[in-house]
């Protein structure tokens, strides 16, 4: 193969962008929303799950290797992709063309939301320090406050809907660009299945927000024993 390496790199980078959207970034979103939705069952299951994750061995390596680097890569490649295309959804008004534009828009919104979301949680943890307390009480305290204002509710609703839409439509895009869904019917049925999955994830996310809003139970700071 005497092809210039630039072409191979281009192919690999775009394939990786597609793949990282599913694992680990998409998988993280599913786990994150599922674990958080334990809050709707009670504070204690939520606290247990959050602390279990926070006490994983080599947590910092897992966070960097499986969340931060893939997420940053996916975002940067995403902005490159946004830069390459030029929407014409108002001229050619077809459903898929609208979804094409929405995919790019929600990607950018989710990126901005994540900066905010990490600023108030991970950022706060880094800057203020959680002292020697477990992570869960610290986070619950932040979230209890955050979801009491309507601005907080609006920001989180937009963020969650953007992320779940981007993920479910992105899984469809992954299945098409990797050639898993080929025929017209297969692509349509796949879209229905992924839309349903997106709705479930959205429901989980918004239910958690609502639970925090309506039922802000304060918790005692605990120390890992």
């Amino acid at each position, binding site marked *: 193969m005497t092809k210039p390496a630039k072409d191979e790199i281009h192919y690999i980078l775009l394939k990786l962008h597609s793949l990282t959207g599913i694992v680990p970034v998409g998988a993280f979103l599913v786990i994150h929303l599922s674990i958080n939705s334990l809050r709707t069952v009670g504070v204690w299951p939520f606290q247990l799950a959050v602390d279990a994750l926070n006490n994983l061995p080599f947590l910092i390596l897992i966070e960097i290797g499986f969340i931060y680097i893939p997420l940053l890569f996916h975002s940067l490649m995403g902005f490159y992709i946004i830069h*390459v295309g030029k929407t014409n959804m108002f001229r050619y008004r077809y459903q*898929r063309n609208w*979804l094409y534009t929405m995919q790019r828009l929600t990607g950018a919104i989710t990126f901005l939301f994540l900066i905010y979301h990490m600023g108030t949680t991970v950022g706060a943890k880094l800057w203020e320090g959680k002292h020697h307390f477990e992570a869960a009480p610290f986070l619950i305290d932040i979230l209890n406050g955050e979801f009491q204002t309507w601005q907080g509710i609006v920001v989180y609703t937009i963020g969650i809907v953007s992320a779940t839409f981007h993920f479910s439509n992105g899984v469809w895009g992954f299945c098409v*660009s990797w050639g898993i*869904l080929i025929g017209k019917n297969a692509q349509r049925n796949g879209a229905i299945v992924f839309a349903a999955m997106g709705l479930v994830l959205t429901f989980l996310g918004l239910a958690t927000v609502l639970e925090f809003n309506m039922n802000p139970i304060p918790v005692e700071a605990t120390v890992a024993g």
Partner: protein
Amino acid sequence: MRRRTAASKGRHQKKRRDLAASGEVIHKTMTDKKITFKIKRQDKPGSPSYWQNFQVAYKPFANIISCLMEIQRNPTTKAGKTVAPVTWDCNCLEEVCGSCTMVINGKVRQACTALVDNLEQPIALEPMTKFPVVRDLQVNRTRMFENLKKVKAWIDIDGSHDIGEGAIMPDSDRAKRYVMSECMTCGCCLEACPQFSLNNSFMGAATFNQVRLFNLHPAGSMNKEERLDAVMGEGGITDCGNAQVCVEVCPKNIPLTESIADIGRQTSWQFIKNLLVK
């Protein structure tokens, strides 16, 4: 095959007579009725474009080409100024050559099958925006031809020696290939694609469809890997954004999105194969 009975033949002829008669009536009573055009013009490649309005006498069943011919005979703008005639490309006049593709009332399509009676006036005519303009409504679609060459959109036959008869093809493949082979390189799919632009190297749906067409041919599949390698770089299959406008605007109803997804599958396997075998 169903035979046409004498009665239905009679009905058919009557219908034609009626149509012709109504046409004459329209023609007689509406000679002062006009068709208004708003045409985007450009004198030479790279020069600035400008709009001019034209009016031609209404004729029933007129298409855009017949109106452009009318303007060519009498190149006078609506304001009464005589200008250089509007130039355009056309050839077959039955939507199989693709050369009269232009943007009509904002949507890309062939001018020959764009009937004036079905269009809102003033009818806006623009050259395609994703190809360099040669003059007025003529564009240069060399890029499409270059892409066909890049992906070897042909089947190699005998070289220096006879390679014998080709393999037989399953009829299901033949049927699939027939639909794909209807591509006339008109450029509609590329004009409507949000990923295709004048300043990038995206190959677009038409090219990927050709890769699938020739890879599906038993003899053509001998060059399968070369074709796949050609679409696995910048401007290749990974640059598709799945907006799927291509399949909506394709005048030949080619399942372009199916072709794109299939090339996605073929290139994914090829990539894994390149990683593990080469």
